[in-house]
């Protein structure tokens, strides 16, 4: 009985969170520099329902606050992929990746290495 109660409570919890207009999430997005940062954040913010997006160059962590009634993580990830950045859920299509500036080619180990010391641009 106790377990059922807990389970039920958890369900309620999830349902309320499903309607959270200020849902928070943190996902990993690949990139190397401040140009990537602005590209990633811009893509998120221009995606409907995203209220705040802050990407950390060093940790690759993207902190999101978004309206769950209007969008979800998958939509946002797709949007990020469409401007050329990989998330763990969605890989950027090659044409989008190829369109980004040559200094931002985060899949290239040489580029990643170049950015390592400067900790960004």
């Amino acid at each position, binding site marked *: 009985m106790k377990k059922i109660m807990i389970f039920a409570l958890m369900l309620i919890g999830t349902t309320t969170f499903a309607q959270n207009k200020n849902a928070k999430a943190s996902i*990993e997005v690949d990139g190397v520099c401040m140009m990537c940062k602005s590209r990633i954040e811009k893509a998120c*913010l*221009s995606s409907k329902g995203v*209220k705040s997006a802050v990407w950390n160059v*060093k940790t690759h962590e993207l902190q999101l606050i978004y309206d769950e009634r209007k969008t979800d993580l998958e939509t946002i990830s797709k949007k990020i992929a469409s401007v050329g950045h990989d998330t763990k859920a969605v890989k950027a299509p090659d044409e989008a990746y190829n369109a980004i500036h040559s200094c931002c080619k985060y899949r290239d180990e040489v580029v990643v290495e170049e950015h390592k010391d400067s*900790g960004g641009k």
Partner: protein
Amino acid sequence: MKPLRYLLFLLPLISFSQDRVSGIVMEANAENTTTGLAGANVYWLDTTIGVVTDIEGRFSIPYTSENKKLVISYVGFKTDTLTISQPKTIRHWLESKGDLATVTLTSRKQTTTKSYLHAANTFTVGSEELLKAACCNLSESFETNPSIDVNFADAVTGTRQIKMLGLTSPYILIATENIPSIRGASQAFGMSFIPGTWIESIQITKGAGSVVNGFESIAGQINAELVKPLTDNKVYINAYANANGRLELNTHLNTPISDKWSTGLYMHGNLRDAKHDNNNDSFLDMPLQEQVSVMNRWQYIDTEKGFVTFLNLNVLNDEKQTGQVNFNSKTDKGTTNAWGSEIDTRRYEISTKFGYINPEIPWQSIGVQAAYSNHKQESYYGLNLYHIKQNSLYTNAIYNSIISDSRHKIKTGMSFTYDHYDELVNTTDYERTERSVGGFFEYNFDNLEKLNLTAGLRIDNHNLWGTFVTPRFHARYTPWGKSALRASFGRGKRSANIFAENQSVFSTSRLLNILNSDGEIYGLNPEIAWNYGISFLQGFNLFKRKADITVDFYRTDFENQVVVDFENPQEVNFYNLEGDSYANSFQIEMNYNVFEHFDLRLAYKYYDVKTQYQSEKLERPLTPKNRFFANAAYETHMNDNDTGQWRFDVTFNWLGKQRFSSTVTSPLAFQLPEYTPSVTTLNAQITKVFSPKFEVYFGGENMTNTKQDNPILGANNPFGSNFDTTFVYGPIFGASYYAGLRFKIK
């Protein structure tokens, strides 16, 4: 029982071992012990097939022969890619990026920073910049800054006024921690009431400021951020002695009270009791002074709940005596035995700030500021009596949020101000109360692209002026890399406190006349001006060294001004502007890091400031049209243990000719030429850092020993009709040297 549990763990492995890759991701450590990483990402490279490790760091991912590269990543750790050729069990240690985060940046912080991103033309002067000149107080802290002119000390009170865009400090909103602080009765001397060591940084905004801080700013805003009990040194002592007899002592004591509360006690005292008359005009070159100021700050921070609170208490006592060397205040006050002046100021201030940042929603915050001050100045200048009392209350509440997303930020709020003035000018009493209540709204658009703009509007109701609107607008556009093109316009409105702002008129034999009488403040109307500006900032590399260049042009157009007319040497006339009054300011500034640890700053400034006087339209007196400025800073390399560093700073200033107000109707002996000669000054300072705790500095001001010949007209007959101390364009005291020490415990 225990073996059973192991068996349970093994079971899934066995059952999936044919078509899955499974294993455990662990945090790397010296002993290679098993510390599972929960929530690490494990996925096949170039696919969307991925899993997250469980609470113990375990994972299991389907295996297909097409996928060979398995990527393991975790925020804060180095990402690893493993080559997998067959389904198997993996034990993998991820290495922390932690060592990256602790790398200390050894590059030198710029002492004055300009933003490439903000909409407003704001730059921040850091505490390092303030140390370049042993600035004893706020009015002296702009000597290494070309955007702000520091006028030469007035011949009687020794006070320095500042100018921005060709306009004197009453047209600049001067705030401490965003609370307007130097205004009204404290306008003339207030900048010397903020000790230099209390200042953490200064933000200078050229042109129209933000509507959040009120409607008063016209030429710009200066905000002094004070040191905070939480971040300031535990103990800080600064002792200073000047060859001209000035002694200063600053002590800071900061201590945490609990994990959320901290408090600081800041004491400042300065004393000058040596009489100097280098030019033998029988007048002291600088006043005798005694100032004691004590501030107690309380700071509360609760980051979890998002609360920040400040409480400030400040008591100040300032006494100045000046005039003729043989003046004795006890026997000569109110007589014509000798000319003398005493200015005594007492000021109490209490201010508080309360801030709440929603920890769940970082863009939502509420701030409330409140400040009360009681300012009392009792003074006489020769036979002129001047007393002023001001009771002032300022409250402002600001709400920050966003519209739809963080590209559209808004600030909105309400403010209320109350000022009661009680003034005695010789035998005339002036008393007035000003109250204003207003609401403001500011919108900021920043889509991280080339354009960023801030548009603000406030509506205020003032008990004397009725309801009026103050618009302010700033925009920044980045046409290409490392550049910022800015434009701004805005309106400002203020009451001219004609006596408080022009106290030097009491040290003359001029007659004071207020010519209009239908206005609300001394019979005069409020001052209203529009300010327009454009600026361009470009950063670049010159011979592989960082450089930047800023060009700006500002115009201030007065709709109404209280004209202070000195053009008749027997009178000072105050009247409402009829006709044109404007100030055009052009500045070009370059900063260049010539070689490592050597920075150079060069600036040229051109002013065209004209006002329609009763007689004719004339250049504003004592405002140089041309100014050249240079500052060079060099420091030796800091040893590994932060000791044995030398720092050198040199500042050069050249001021072109300045117009004297007309003296053609004076007797020939008291006539001055139309223009002053040009003035050159050189300041330098050397600092020796012995350890992070202790440093010593030596410096010289006006080392070229430039002196104005005749700063006081009619000095030999101060009660006669041609006595005038307002024609000061250059240093009165020649070269002056100082030394000091700083001691701090972190």
